């Protein structure tokens, strides 16, 4: 179906190759997962599949790619539209029309399908992605998860043979991600669709994969079945780490498989003590009582009463649109509650002057780039120093502690996701806020970047900062959080120690907890320490 013949590509001459002499064959009807660290060129690779690279990017290109019998050197992306469907990283940027139904029909209108077929396929796509209820809705009013599903449906409706998805589940809660991925798997099985997915949260996609493509920084590509490829992959989900720890050959790719093979280890673990829950310190950094927030007639938060202690890391979980971001915005003083109060050191945050507020609370929004507006990294750090009356160079020191060496003359937009997040984080914590709020910080981060983020957050926690993270990433929660809060439709439905909350909610349970259920082990590291004591 797809054949690369010694294909090479780089964005500029003299720069390293993103793809270097790649030879690759992908068969029809396979579910392929593209794996690689942040910034290695996964998106670039995906874009070569329908010619978006090099048509839209420019750059140096050699070799040949043939997709479905058509050579990409003689076909424009538009000519491939009936064969390859492409969904980019940011679905809302790809919307051309303004209503869900029209968006679904857009590609087919361009392909010139007759109205009867179009109507039928739009209905099918609405069904597959369960979008029936919002078919008439304006695109601008959809939630992040809904937008993602509309973007996939819009491409599916044109009935391509190949579907290319760049991080399709990064904006979705675990339940919705599962739904989208099973819908795709069904299409792979039923109609022989070829699906190629790049995703950082491998724990979500690996169970579905037939083939794995591993990209390396020198432009080399390896292809193979998941179990053998993951054994040597530089980045691995918890299940693979567990397999490596226990010396499984071949590795287990699904929780079900792992559970069957884990029998004796589980018996061992039954006698081990679970790590102790970190006690919640005295005092309170932030409290909300009966907090209610209405957007017009819609109620985003309902009587939320919470108490956040200093020196603790809280995870805020919940479905897409359950009010997590709203709650963070209220706590950061960007929104004013309709009823009830949020108190930050005894004061409502929305009443404080912005310059006073940042000494008490810092928020890193979903798109950390929003916080950065200098043209260079160095300048960004210097402004932060000046604004917070710090010694010159202290923000930069912080950035280097998180990021390692970094070119000071680079534009923040040219940094990788992880680097940008770290820079925004450094700029926010430069003010030494007592409360740090992070909205969906692990989007686009690979496992290594996530680990260094966790390290950083734990360091802040030990300095007495109250850290609140709204996230869909359960593995991240398992590794980092002390306490967890679950929101649903704006209400708090569960709160308590992270171990208790996430292990007892099937949707939010991390892989290790699922494998060892009903034992409440959360991470591979915990299991390793426990077993180390046994052996």
């Amino acid at each position, binding site marked *: 179906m797809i054949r690369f013949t010694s294909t090479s590509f780089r964005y500029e001459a003299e720069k390293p190759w993103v793809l270097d002499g790649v030879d690759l064959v992908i068969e029809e009807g396979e579910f392929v997962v593209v794996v690689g660290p942040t910034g290695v060129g996964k998106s670039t690779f995906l874009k070569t599949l329908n010619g978006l690279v090099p048509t839209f990017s420019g750059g140096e290109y050699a070799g040949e790619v043939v997709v479905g019998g058509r050579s990409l050197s003689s076909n424009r992306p*538009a000519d491939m539209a009936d064969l390859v469907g492409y969904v980019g990283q940011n679905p809302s940027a790809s*919307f051309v029309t303004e209503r869900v139904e029209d968006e679904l029909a857009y590609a087919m*209108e361009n392909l010139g399908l007759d*109205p009867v077929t179009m109507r039928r396929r739009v209905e099918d796509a609405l069904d597959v992605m369960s979008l029936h209820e919002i078919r008439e809705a304006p695109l601008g*009013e*959809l939630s992040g998860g809904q937008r993602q599903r509309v973007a996939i449906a819009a491409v599916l409706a044109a009935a391509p043979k190949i579907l290319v998805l760049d991080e399709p589940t990064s904006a979705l809660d675990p339940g919705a991600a599962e739904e989208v991925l099973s819908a795709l798997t069904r299409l792979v099985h039923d109609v022989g669709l070829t699906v190629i997915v790049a995703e950082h949260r491998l724990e979500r996609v690996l169970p579905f994969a037939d083939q794995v493509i591993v990209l390396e920084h020198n432009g080399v590509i390896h292809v193979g079945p998941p179990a053998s490829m993951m054994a040597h992959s530089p980045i691995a989900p918890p299940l693979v780490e567990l397999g490596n720890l226990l010396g499984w050959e071949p590795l287990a790719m699904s929780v079900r498989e792992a559970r069957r093979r884990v029998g004796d280890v589980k018996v061992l673990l039954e006698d081990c003590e679970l790590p102790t829950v970190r006690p919640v310190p005295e005092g309170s950094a932030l409290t909300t009582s009966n907090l209610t927030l209405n957007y017009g007639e819609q109620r985003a938060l309902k009587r939320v009463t919470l108490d956040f202690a200093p020196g603790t890391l809280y995870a805020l979980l919940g479905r897409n649109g359950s009010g997590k971001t*709203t709650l963070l915005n209220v706590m950061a003083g960007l929104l004013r509650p309709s009823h009830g109060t949020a108190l930050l050191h005894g004061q409502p945050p929305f009443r404080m002057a912005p310059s006073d507020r940042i000494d008490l609370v810092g928020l890193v929004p979903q*798109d950390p780039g929003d916080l950065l507006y200098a043209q260079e990294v160095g300048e960004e750090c210097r402004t932060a120093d000046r604004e917070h009356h710090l010694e010159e160079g202290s923000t930069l020191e912080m950035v280097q502690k998180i990021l390692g060496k970094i070119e000071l003359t680079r534009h923040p937009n040219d940094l990788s996701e992880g680097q940008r997040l770290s820079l925004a984080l450094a700029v926010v914590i430069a003010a030494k806020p007592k409360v740090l709020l992070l909205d969906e910080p692990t989007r686009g981060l690979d496992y290594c970047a996530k680990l260094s983020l966790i390290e950083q957050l734990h360091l802040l926690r030990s300095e007495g900062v109250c850290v609140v993270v709204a996230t869909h990433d359960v593995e991240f929660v398992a590794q980092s959080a002390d306490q967890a809060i679950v929101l649903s439709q704006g209400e708090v439905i569960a709160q308590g120690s992270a171990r208790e909350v996430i292990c007892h909610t099937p949707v939010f349970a991390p892989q290790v907890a699922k494998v060892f259920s009903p034992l409440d082990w959360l991470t591979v590291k915990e299991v390793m320490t426990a077993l180390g004591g046994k052996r």
Partner: protein
Amino acid sequence: MIDDRPHAVAWWLWALGLAVVAVKLSNPVPMVALGTVMFCVGYLRQSPAAWGRSLMLFVKIGAVVILVRLIFQMLFGERIPGHTLFAIPSVALPSWAAGVSIGGPVTAESLITAGIVGLKLALILLAFGAANAIASPRELLRSLPGVFNEIAVAISVGLCFLPELINAVQRVRSARKLRGRPTKGIAGFRGIVVPVLEEALEHSMELALSMGARGFGRTSSTPSRRRSALCGVSAILGVAALILGTYGLLSAGSSIPSPGVLCGVGAVFLSLGVVASGRRSVRTRYRPIPFGWRSMVCVVSGWLGLVGISILQSSSPDATSYAPYPLVWPTVSVAALACVALGLVALAVSPRPALRPSGRSKHMAEATSR
């Protein structure tokens, strides 16, 4: 349900008809009536979607237009003699600036004349504001024939750019608040504009990419470039001739020769271009709204009034036009009012718009988007 609605094109033609009526009128009585008709229809039939909320905006802009016109008249306007209401201190200008005056006596006549001109502009705005609230301009663009496809897409991308821009401004503003930086004043303005423009540029690149990947600009076979260029040129020439001709027909003392012929030639060129290019474009239309009898009635409702007003204009000029010399009350003509009221017929042939589709509220989406 959707199919009961008059076509978007019908609504815009209706508005065009009423706008031309506004141009023809200078009697404030039927003018105010016309404004009421436009507002009523726009308000009762406005779409529940985002763009439908724009009617009030147009009303406000209209009010500002009238106000500005009045103020300019008071300050810099031509000094029309008549009943002086009050005087503004005048500034003596050197002789080379003859014809321009600043300040001086303000007469009732001058204010009335200025008010009528302002009202005329406001009515034209309101006509299109109403059409915009009822039928999205995008829907209109989508109905354009294939030869205008590229232009239509360019405009509709531009239209989608505006809400996106507002969204971006809000996000950057709250980000600045998060860093304790000013969001007002010159520093605030600069700090907001630069990132917003950067983002806008990035966004348009992504949009172009997405459109390319989804088959925008495909053609059935590779037609000769010359032929497709010819189609485009013919259509654009046709439109230009039509516009010039219409201008000639509408404005009394224009210097455009034989505007009627020009209109005819324009129409021929336009249809040539449209028909010839229609054969090469592969684009089809999803669930097109048929241009049925309701749409026809809607268009007629907008243009029948114009016919009536034109007849009145020659038979009894006082009914449609008014000048404050001498300063008397304008004529109230039942015939003129009836002509204007014909615009309401569009209400009868269009169903009430459905309630809000089930999406989340606008604010909610703003707070959680991205």
